[in-house]
């Protein structure tokens, strides 16, 4: 069992949990992920590691309530435990040779962009951290973000924080202003990562994306997380989750991400029934 030692609501849909998992904390690195399972009937869900404390033996995860399992996870509190918590899985982000970079996070992707920005910033790189949210109420980790970069640019879709636009527009502005990044790291929804890659392709800026496809075991066994990268089949769990964004077939990844939509809706309905006792 893996006890939850801290729970923090970051906004109405995003929650942070610090989980006691010494075996994972011992080796975890930015860019890697874990897989959790809540209970005997639960599904295995991958989440990128948002932080770790080797001494305390804890790992931090940040999740958005998007489906049945994440809704259920959000009902747990400090003192409750997860049945399974395995990792660290995947390859860590390769930060060598990065001196001037933009780290871009969209929505929940900000939670994963944060440790990467922090690791690069701590290693002495110049980091522009560009993050985007739908509105100002959804902005998370503001202080942490500020401390993890050279420049922080926070965008909102509706302009409610006074800075309207998408992260790609902010990136465009930076590029036009002459920022010569050696690397761009983009983490967020697939359409956002695709848009960033389209923007950096022409100026030939190396762009790393973090893929989060459907997977079961996370150790290379099921192949459910396969992606086409540069015309080759890759498994996100063992070959990634980081890939050269200019080589990823995003359209295919988006289609594969939609594979279980109807089933997800059905499972979510079950959750609402259980919570409210309604008979559907």
């Amino acid at each position, binding site marked *: 069992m893996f006890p939850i030692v801290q729970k923090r609501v970051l906004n109405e849909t995003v929650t942070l949990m610090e989980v006691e998992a010494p075996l994972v904390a011992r080796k975890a690195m930015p860019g890697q992920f874990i897989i959790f399972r809540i209970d005997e*009937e639960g599904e295995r869900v991958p989440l990128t590691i948002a932080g770790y404390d080797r001494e305390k033996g804890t790992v931090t995860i940040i999740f958005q309530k998007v489906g049945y399992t994440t809704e259920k996870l959000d009902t747990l509190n400090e003192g409750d435990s997860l049945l399974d*918590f395995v990792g660290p899985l995947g390859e860590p982000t390769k930060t060598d040779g990065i001196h001037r970079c933009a780290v871009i996070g969209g929505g929940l992707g900000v939670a994963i962009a944060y440790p990467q920005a922090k690791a690069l910033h701590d290693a002495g790189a110049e980091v522009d951290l560009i993050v985007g949210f739908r509105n100002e109420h959804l902005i998370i980790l503001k202080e942490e973000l500020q401390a993890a970069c050279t420049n922080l640019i926070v965008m909102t879709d509706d302009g409610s924080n006074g800075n309207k636009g998408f992260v790609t527009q902010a990136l465009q502005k930076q590029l036009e202003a002459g920022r010569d990044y050696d690397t761009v790291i983009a983490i967020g929804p697939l359409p956002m990562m695709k848009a960033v890659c389209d923007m950096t392709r022409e100026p030939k800026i190396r762009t790393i994306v973090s893929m989060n496809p459907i997977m079961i075991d996370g150790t290379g066994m099921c192949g*459910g997380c396969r992606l086409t990268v540069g015309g080759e089949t890759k498994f996100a769990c063992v070959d990634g989750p980081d890939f050269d964004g200019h080589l990823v077939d995003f359209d295919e990844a988006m289609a594969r991400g939609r594979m279980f939509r109807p089933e997800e809706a059905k499972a979510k309905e079950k959750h609402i029934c259980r919570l409210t006792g309604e008979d559907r």
Partner: protein
Amino acid sequence: MTMANMSLQKNPMPEQDPQVRAGNFREVALGYTADIAMDEAQRCLHCKNAPCVTGCPVNVPIPDFIDRIKEGDFSGAYQVIRSQNALPAICGRVCPQESQCESKCVRGIKGEPVGIGRLERFAADTAMAQGTNKAEKVPFCGKRAAVIGSGPAGLTCAGELAKAGWDVTIYEALHTAGGVLMYGIPEFRLPKTLVEREINSLKELGVKIITNAVAGKAFTVDELLEEGNDAVFIGSGAGLPNFQKIPGESLCGVYSANEFLTRLNLMKAYTFPEHDTPVKIGNHVAVVGGGNVAMDAARCAKRLGAEVTILYRRSEAEMPARAEEVHHAKEEGIQFRMLTAPTFIEGDENGFVKSVRCIEMQLGEPDERGRRRPVPVKGSEYELPMETVIIAIGNSPNPLIKKTTPDLPTEKWGGIQTDESGRTGKKDVYAGGDAVTGAATVILAMGAGKKAAAAILEDHPS
């Protein structure tokens, strides 16, 4: 002693009716009753040289255990099997007896061999039902071992070492112990409660199992040695699914057999939404391949209500699946298209499988392994409407351990190199099962686990 039963036929295995079982996940074979088992046991002639034993990868004293069944001493029969075989209830179900013990049986020269597998299963099931399958913990001898992987190779190796007084810890990557016995082989062929019981009897021997522990990620082989283990056994299996590398394999609706079977067997997707993991199957399913895994996948898909077609590029004679599995699949209404290979999977506008383009094959010259090579017949392509395609064309060893253990010699294709006894090129490190041989059978993995345990005991006298 009573006269031997000279019937030329084995006592048939009572089975669920094919029509009924094609709609449920309960076990197909129901097992012998005590009367049938004792009658079948009478068919054994107790040959002095026991040719059957030479066909068994773990050397079960077959005539001896059958004698106990003849006498009605069923728990005695179990103890005899257990002396050499850590997982009798599993072997009685999934061993290919027809090419092992039973292929050597003298009764098979004229008529059918003794139903050794069925009798083994009977003895194990009876002992478990009566609770006489208890194992005694052996005093600690001062030696410690780490076992990577809790599949048949790892479980067997761990059991053998524990019986010799070793302190053994198994590290399992998934959340449940059992490896392929849990995620791969379906419930209707190998009930999961039974696998759990076999594993529990290993725990009674003192074997510890840590789940959610991924070797090569959470820890390395070298760390296990540094942390005070006298030996490490690697039984990490062949878990990496192969694909055909034809266009369309990344469409929604294309599964590796591993993914499909894991969803069903480990995650219990056939009970969705009671269990949270879904599986999407559609009405028309193609399974590509001709091995036992292909049969398992096809029979699972059938139980979910689909029309299932197996596409195999050679003819039935070359099929690597057990004859019994092919027979069961046919009985359950699964269609077979032999000498057929998919060349292209067509998708619809949403990225879901729409059809599979196939080409007819004919058999050409034998390849290096003596199997006739399939050759495409020009102009014979046609299309089959499908919603799901399951690729069951084999697996490769998992590279995680190889990647993090640079001084462990491996083959080009990823298999770990060992001598005949399971010793690797790295001191105190042993390996066996599919991680060494590539995908094979449960019993061969068990045989390898047992041999490696013997080598470990020989190299580390206490």
